[in-house]
């Protein structure tokens, strides 16, 4: 029976959500193709985590080694090369995360296995893998097929599939395989985790956020945004480009590499809505988006949308809110 591999992602003892998202999608593919779903977990002292995976997958392959205490793509590559060569799975799934981005392309090149990255959907059509992914920051979807091969590899976008535990649980069989590692990986060594600098502002605690993005265009325009936030009693937050440019400190960044926020109000100004940003703010109670591009993905997540130059809307809104506050006083 063909096998589908899902590489479990875990950090500091915690299995990451992407693992369950992938297992859920992989189960669907396994059922359609009459394949066996296998979860792979590599690490040190992770037998408990393997048991959790057994609730989702028919089989769990567990490899434990003190040298796997922290993720190391070179060590993972060696072990997965061996497992893939032995088991010849039809599909290997990993997260399109800092885990999978580091590991999958190199592993695929080593095995000459067709790889599709950042997939938002995937299916077998016959024995060919077909994937859906995005280009141009999520503005265009792409349907693509992989070159015919015995094994395909795909990295999966986070928060694309809703995790669902099988009912009843899969009650999978855990197979512990001895680690094939014989020495430390010397060309690439993990040294330590580096925590973000302690921030002055906790945007996750704010009830109202004004999020600014690339559309702000110039650092000189930041005070206008700050003024609107102040008028609304909101805190200024932002998407990645604003932090990259140094216009706001990193503790203001909303998104997968920043903070996840759930304020009562989120006003997105000049933010197109790349999925990394959306991941961090889509659960806000009320989302208002201002963007010049009517097709900006942010409008799919906003309650109210305004297709207009933000520099026309921001001053008007500030005035109207001020007028209202004066009336009230």
């Amino acid at each position, binding site marked *: 029976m063909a096998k589908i591999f899902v590489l479990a992602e875990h950090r500091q003892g915690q299995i990451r959500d992407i693992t369950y998202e992938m297992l859920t999608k992989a189960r669907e593919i396994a059922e359609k193709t009459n394949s066996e779903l296998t979860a792979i977990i590599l690490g040190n002292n992770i037998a408990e985590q393997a048991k959790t995976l057994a609730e989702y997958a028919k089989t769990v392959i567990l490899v434990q080694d003190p040298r796997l205490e922290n993720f190391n793509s070179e060590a993972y590559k060696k072990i997965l090369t061996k497992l893939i060569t032995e088991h010849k799975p039809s599909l290997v799934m990993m997260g399109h995360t800092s885990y999978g981005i580091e590991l999958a*392309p190199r592993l695929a090149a080593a095995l000459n296995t067709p790889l*599709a990255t950042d997939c938002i959907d995937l299916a077998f059509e016959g024995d060919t893998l077909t994937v859906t992914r995005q280009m141009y920051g999520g503005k265009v979807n792409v349907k693509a097929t992989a070159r015919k091969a015995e094994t395909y590899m795909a990295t999966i976008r986070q928060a694309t599939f809703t995790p669902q535990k099988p009912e009843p649980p899969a009650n999978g069989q855990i197979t512990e395989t001895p680690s094939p590692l014989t020495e430390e990986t010397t060309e690439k060594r993990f040294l330590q985790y580096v925590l973000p600098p302690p921030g002055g502002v906790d945007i996750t605690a704010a009830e109202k956020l004004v999020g600014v993005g690339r559309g702000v265009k110039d650092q000189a325009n930041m005070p206008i945004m700050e003024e609107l936030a102040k008028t609304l009693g909101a805190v200024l937050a932002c998407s990645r480009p604003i932090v990259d440019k140094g216009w706001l400190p990193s503790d203001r960044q909303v998104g997968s590499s920043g903070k996840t926020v759930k304020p009562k109000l989120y006003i997105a100004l000049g933010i197109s809505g790349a999925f990394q940003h959306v991941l961090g703010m889509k659960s806000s109670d*009320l989302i208002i988006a201002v963007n010049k591009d009517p097709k900006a993905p942010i409008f799919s997540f906003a309650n109210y949308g*305004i297709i207009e130059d933000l520099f026309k809307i921001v001053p*008007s809104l500030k005035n109207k809110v001020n*007028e209202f506050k004066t009336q009230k006083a």
Partner: protein
Amino acid sequence: MDVVVCVKHVPETAEAELKIDASGKTIEKTGLVFDINEWDDYALEEAVRIKEKQGGTVTAITIGTQDTESTLRKCLARGADTAIRLTDPKFENSDAYATAKILHATIKTLHYDLILTGMQAGDDGNAAVGPILAEMLGIPHATMVKKIELATGTAKVNRELEGGLEEQLEIKLPALFSVQTGINEPRYVSIMGIRKAMQKEIKIMTLAETGLTENDVGMAGSWINIQKLYVPPVEKQAEFLKGTPDEIAAKLTDILKSRGLI
């Protein structure tokens, strides 16, 4: 320290409205402004900073038609010493794997201590060329790099993980790092710099000169082939507020009032 930087010439699409062309396999490029890929811009800046600190050379490489030379000129103006353009009609439709093969065929003939790439390209967003290239060259790599500290024979790099967390790795040189945005602040290029760069030669190499065959590159040499592009289906759409800016602002204020948000 000799650094090779791989750069891509891409359309700026963050604020543009895109249309899919008649073939259904790419977007309409007319009217779009092309520039160096954002991530590669940071990689180039990092390379130039390393050269300024440690000496050595910076070589910028791209794959593409003649119009990609404006991106190479930018690299030269910023401080790259040499620029190479790999070009051949057969290179078209190359995916990340075929692209890495083309780069590999050239880079393996150069002397390098470090290879820098952007973590991904803003157009296809594969985030795969760098690590594939590292595998082909047989050198270690790190992706999503936000800090590089060089020592003798090794480098300490910080990789971006999630939620603001980073990991620090020690990697033996030569190595390939794919750079995340925000690693530095790319400099502006002076008019003088651009003028000087116009006189520098760009080395051009075709398929035959790379030693690859037709079957290694383009669609034939790729893992993944694009079937069609389409506008993402809209599952949910915002309620759009229309009118003059003042009318819109008044409507917004009413919404905020009714929800007790002001």
